[in-house]
């Protein structure tokens, strides 16, 4: 029997709290257009509008036929960002293998992040294969560390072609992937330097039957699960391996199987996400049958940095050291170190709750950031954040704001009180 009182309380609280979170009529039109590839039929449409719409459709279709799924379809926010748009490269490289064919359509490298779009077409009646993406960037003789930060289909820890997840169909026709250079000490000379990118996909095939576990995955740390639950869960993967069956979890992930099969314990020490695949390859369940490789050379767009070191004090006394600012044509990357002068106690996340920093770019729109906080061994707090921007900028504007006023400042795209105005810090970029 449903607890009606609880239901009412939950519905009341969530609907009150989220009452401002609604879709607009424009958004709903966009949802429809993006889903169907068409436009809603309005009650009254002028002949001119129909002609314009028809011309637009012809243009879009021609573009799609030329390049397939493009960067600006993956990142439509950047459509008006001229420097970004101008540096998009049409690649149209196709690889054709036993199990699928793949085409890389376009790529763009902003000096910090490389984005590419692609499509994958499985071969009819071909066995499912597990694909491991490997992306390398080379600057001169030096290989740079890369990290997939976002993709439109799950890609960073491997994926199945065709999709093996029950009741889910990934859109392999329209794949977009963002990859960053994870070493922020790397700098390029945009006029001379070129970066060689290689995107490859190891194609793993198994002759073993593939099965799914019916058991929910225990979540470590949840009180209802015990170590023995987890051991039981793991043991089914070990058993499957012994019986020469590949066992997937309920969302078709291979990692529990890979982690459970026998491997050299020394690999555990070095195991980093997603190196469980390396463990898998030491066993006999899978073999790499093919490798799809694409490569291209990109001229990086200029990346700007702060002209001089910046430190400032927050109104609550915390000291902020700006350790790194990198600003490309489409993103701001910022690393801050936060300390508490005169205190021998390590900073905790709770110490950074009352105040925060709003960041804007002069002359370009700033989107909400991806933020990560982490405490350091020296007692300081690290704050790493990335903002998407939709145009070039020469100056960043930082405003220390009270947490409760943050949303007002963001909506206003600037200070809302005189105190905030007085606290504003401008960082010139070069």
């Amino acid at each position, binding site marked *: 029997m449903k607890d009606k009182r609880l239901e009412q309380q939950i519905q009341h609280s969530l609907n*009150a709290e989220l009452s401002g*979170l609604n879709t607009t009529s424009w958004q709903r039109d966009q949802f429809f257009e993006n*889903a169907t590839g068409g436009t809603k039929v309005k009650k009254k449409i002028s002949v001119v509008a129909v002609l314009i719409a028809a011309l637009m459709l012809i243009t879009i279709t021609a573009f799609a036929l030329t390049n397939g799924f493009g960067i600006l379809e993956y990142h439509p926010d950047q459509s008006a960002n001229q420097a970004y748009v101008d540096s998009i490269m049409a690649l149209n490289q196709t690889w054709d293998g036993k199990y699928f064919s793949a085409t890389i359509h376009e790529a763009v490298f902003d000096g910090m992040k490389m984005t590419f779009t692609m499509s994958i077409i499985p071969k009819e009646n071909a066995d499912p294969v597990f694909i491991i993406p490997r992306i390398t960037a080379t600057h001169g003789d030096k290989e740079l560390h890369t990290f997939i930060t976002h993709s439109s289909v799950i890609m960073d820890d491997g994926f199945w072609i065709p999709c093996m997840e029950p009741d889910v169909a990934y859109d392999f026709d329209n794949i977009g992937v963002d990859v960053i250079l994870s070493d922020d000490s790397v700098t390029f000379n945009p006029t001379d330097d070129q970066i060689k990118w290689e995107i490859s996909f190891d194609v793993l095939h198994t002759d073993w039957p593939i099965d799914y576990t019916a058991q929910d995955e225990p979540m470590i740390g949840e009180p209802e699960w015990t170590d023995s639950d987890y051991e039981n869960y793991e043991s089914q993967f070990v058993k499957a391996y012994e019986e020469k069956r590949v066992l997937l979890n309920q969302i078709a992930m291979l990692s529990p199987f890979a982690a459970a099969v026998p491997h050299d314990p020394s690999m555990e020490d070095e195991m980093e996400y997603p190196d469980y695949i390396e463990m898998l390859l030491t066993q006999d369940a899978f073999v790499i049958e093919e490798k799809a490789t694409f490569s291209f050379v990109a001229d990086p767009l200029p990346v700007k940095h702060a002209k001089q070191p910046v430190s400032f004090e927050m109104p609550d006394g915390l000291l902020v050291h700006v350790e790194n600012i990198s600003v490309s044509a489409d993103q701001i990357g910022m690393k801050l170190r936060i300390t508490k002068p005169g205190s021998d106690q390590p900073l905790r996340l709770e110490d950074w709750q009352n105040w925060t920093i709003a960041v804007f770019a002069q002359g370009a729109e700033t989107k909400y950031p991806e933020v990560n906080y982490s405490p350091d061994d020296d007692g300081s707090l690290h704050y790493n954040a990335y903002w998407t921007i939709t145009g070039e900028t020469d100056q960043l504007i930082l405003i220390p704001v009270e947490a409760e006023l943050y949303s007002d400042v963001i909506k206003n795209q600037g200070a809302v009180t005189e105190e905030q105005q007085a606290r504003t810090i401008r960082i010139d970029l070069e």
Partner: protein
Amino acid sequence: MERAAVPGMIREQKLNQWIEDYSDSILRTCFLYLSDQNQAEDATQDTWIKAWKHMDDYERKSITNDKAWLLRIAINTCKDYRRSAWFRHIDRNKVLDELPSQLIAVEPEDRTLTLTIMDLPDRYKQVILLYYFQGLTMQETAEVIGASQTTVQRRLKKAESLLKVELTGGVTYEG
């Protein structure tokens, strides 16, 4: 029982109607799942793209509750987003503050309950959002998350007790 194929225009009308009827509901559910307005909007868009692509499935299967079918797509989409999120420490209080201004009064206990639900482990949050927030039945909730009714029952019981523990001193549900 198989349904007759739905002509393209009727499909478009159906999708259009769903978008009008359920976009806000799906956006809010995705937000509570992802704690990120931008990602929730993207997930809502992806839900409609997937719904359109799976119209064949919808027609083939005898779907009796459109909303439950759409929420299933939305929840699966959110799961994908969660798995592909790169790094994320979220101050949910701030995330709520950054939302557009509320249209109705919010009491402190509303914020407490919202934060508590957002902080629940995913498996419990799912069932609370579907069963209590979206008003699905036990069976529909089970179908959406792809689990048995017994599992849903167990998770609900656990989720309710977690909520009540967290909310002691705040909202009390016991009659």
